[in-house]
C-alpha cells in the first residue's frame, strides 16, 4: 500500500506513544510554531546547561507526522552537545528537503530516518519540519549557539 511509505511503523509508534511529551520547567527558551494551512501547533522548550541540551520538552496538537516528529526530535536531541544537535537538525532538514532523493544517515538521524518517505509528499514536509523549526527558535532564545538559518520556511 502506498501510505506505508509515509506511515512507517516507527512514525505510528512515536505518534501513539510519544516520548518525553509535556512542557517542563525549568527552561531557557521557548517557541510556539503553527502551520497556518492546517492548524497544527507545537511548543518546544529548551533547557541548556552550558553547551549541553539538558532537556527538550514539548507539547502540541496535530497530525501523526508533526507529533511523531516532535517525539523523535526529543529522543535525538535531548542530552546532546549543541554543536552535534544542530548537525542532526541540519541532517533532518536536508532529508526533508530532498524530495525522497536523499539517503538518510541512520547513525546521525536514528528514528528520524523513518521520515524519509515523508519527503516524497510535499504537502506533508511542513508537518514533519514544524517541531524542528520551533526547536531552532527556542534554541536561539535559550542562547544556545548553532546554525543561524531561520525557520521562516515553516511560516511561509
Amino acid at each position, binding site marked *: 500500500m502506498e*501510505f506505508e511509505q509515509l506511515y512507517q511503523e516507527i512514525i*505510528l509508534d512515536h505518534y501513539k506513544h510519544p516520548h518525553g511529551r509535556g512542557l517542563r520547567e525549568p527552561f531557557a527558551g521557548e517557541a510556539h510554531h503553527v502551520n497556518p494551512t492546517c*492548524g*497544527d501547533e507545537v511548543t518546544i522548550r529548551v533547557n541548556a546547561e552550558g553547551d549541553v541540551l539538558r532537556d527538550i520538552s514539548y507539547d502540541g496538537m496535530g*497530525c*501523526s507526522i508533526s507529533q511523531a516528529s516532535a517525539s523523535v526530535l526529543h529522543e535525538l536531541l535531548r542530552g546532546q552537545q549543541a554543536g552535534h544537535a544542530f548537525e542532526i537538525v541540519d541532517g533532518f532538514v536536508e532529508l526533508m528537503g530532498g524530495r525522497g532523493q536523499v539517503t538518510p544517515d541512520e547513525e546521525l538521524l536514528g528514528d528520524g530516518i523513518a521520515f524519509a518517505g515523508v519527503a516524497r509528499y510535499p504537502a*506533508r514536509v511542513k*508537518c514533519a519540519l514544524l517541531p524542528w523549526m520551533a526547536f531552532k527558535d527556542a534554541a536561539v532564545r535559550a542562547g544556545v549557539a548553532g546554525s543561524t538559518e531561520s525557520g521562516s520556511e515553516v511560516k511561509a
Partner: protein
Amino acid sequence: MTTITIPEGMPQYGDVPRLDVEKVRADFPILGREVNGHPMVYLDSGNTSQKPRQVIDAMREHYEHHNANVARSVHQVGTEATEAYEGARAKVARFVNAARPEEIVFTKNATEAINLVAYAISNSPAGSRLAFGPGDEIVISEMEHHSNIVPWQLLCERTGATLRWFRVTDAGRLDLESLDEVVNERTRLVSYALVSNVLGTINPTSAITARAREVGALVLLDASQAAPHIPVDVADLDADFLAFTGHKMCGPTGIGVLWGRYELLERMPPVLGGGSMIETVTMERSTFAAPPARFEAGTPPIAEAVGLGAAVDYLTGIGMEAIRWHEKELAAYALDALATVPGLRVFGPTTPVGRGGTISFGLDGIHPHDVGQILDSLGVEVRVGHHCARPLCVRYGVPAMTRASFYLYTTTGEVDALVRGLDQVRKVFG
C-alpha cells in the same frame, strides 16, 4: 407501516426532475482517471469542481477560432471575441435571473467580487450613501469563509466601522435569535454565505433580508457554494449583491462574478483604474464608464468567460432542480452511511434538510491530515484542514476537519468508497 399519500396539488415525489449520473459522468474526462492505483473518487467539489468536455471544448474553440481582445477592436475577430464575452455575461445574468446583463461584473473570483464591494464602499466620498464610518456596523456570521471575513475586517480598519456576527448553533445553523439585536439601525451591510462551505448548511434569507430592509442595510450573499448546487434567483432572494466563482460550477478558474443591483453599481466608484473602465482620460483626470465596464479594468478573462458561459449552459441543460435533488439524495445516503462509522462526528446538520451535499466530520482523535492521506492512498480525494473557515473550527473546538463535498457527478458508490476508506483509516490509527 402506514403509507401516507401526498394530497393532490402538493408536489409529488415523481415530479422531481432527475439526472442520469452515469450519463453526466461520461461528460467529465477526468473522472475516468486513477489515483494511486484506484479509480479516482473525487469528493472535493466544494474546493473546485471538475470540468465537462463541453466547457473544455468551448474554451479550446475560442482560442482556436475566435481569439482577440474585447471591447476595442473594429476587426472581425475582435467582434467575435466581444460577442462571446458579452454573450457569456448575458448567460450568467439569465442563470441568476438578473434584471439585465449589465448587473453582472466579471471578476477574478468570489474573493475579488466581495473585495470589490468593500473597496467601492471605502472609496465612496464621505457623506455619500455608500460611505461607512465610525458608529456604522457590518454584520457577517461565524460560518463564513475567510473571503467573507477578512475584506470586512479590513474595511472596518479603513473606515472605523464595527464588525459584528451571527453565531452558529451546535446543529450548524445560523443563530438568528438575536437577529433584531445584531442587525439594528447602525447596521449598514449584512454579508453571509447562502450555503456554508464547511457545514453544507443552506442559510435562510427572508428573515434576515426583511430585517436588513427594515433598518436600511445592504445585503450581500456569498453564493460560492450555492450557485453551483441550487437554483439561485436574485429577484427571489431580494439581495443587493451576490458573489460567486466560476471554477466551483464546472467553469474554469480565474473568473468570478459580482451581481449587484444596477442602481447600486451605478453609485459605486471604481476600484481598479486602467483601460476599458474609462469614459474620457486627460492628463489631469478621468471620467469613468458605466457598470459593468467601470469595474473591469484591463483585459478581462475572456476565454474564462466563454468557459463560464458554457458551464452555465451545461448546468442549465441538466437542470439546477435536478442537481439539487441529486445532491439531496446523496447527502441523505451519506449521512446514513457515515453514521455507521464508529467514532465519527458530523459537524453541521445531520439531516438532509436545509443542507447541501457537503459534509464535514471528525474521526475520534485521528487528525484530518492523516484521514486525508490514507483516503488518498485509496484514491478517495477529500479536503482536510480548516477550510478557510478557522473561526468555525474554533466554534466546534477542533483545529481541522475532514470534508467530503459532492456534485452532480458524485455517485452513492463513491460514498461507499469513502466509508470503506474510513474503516482503513481506523485500522491504521486505531
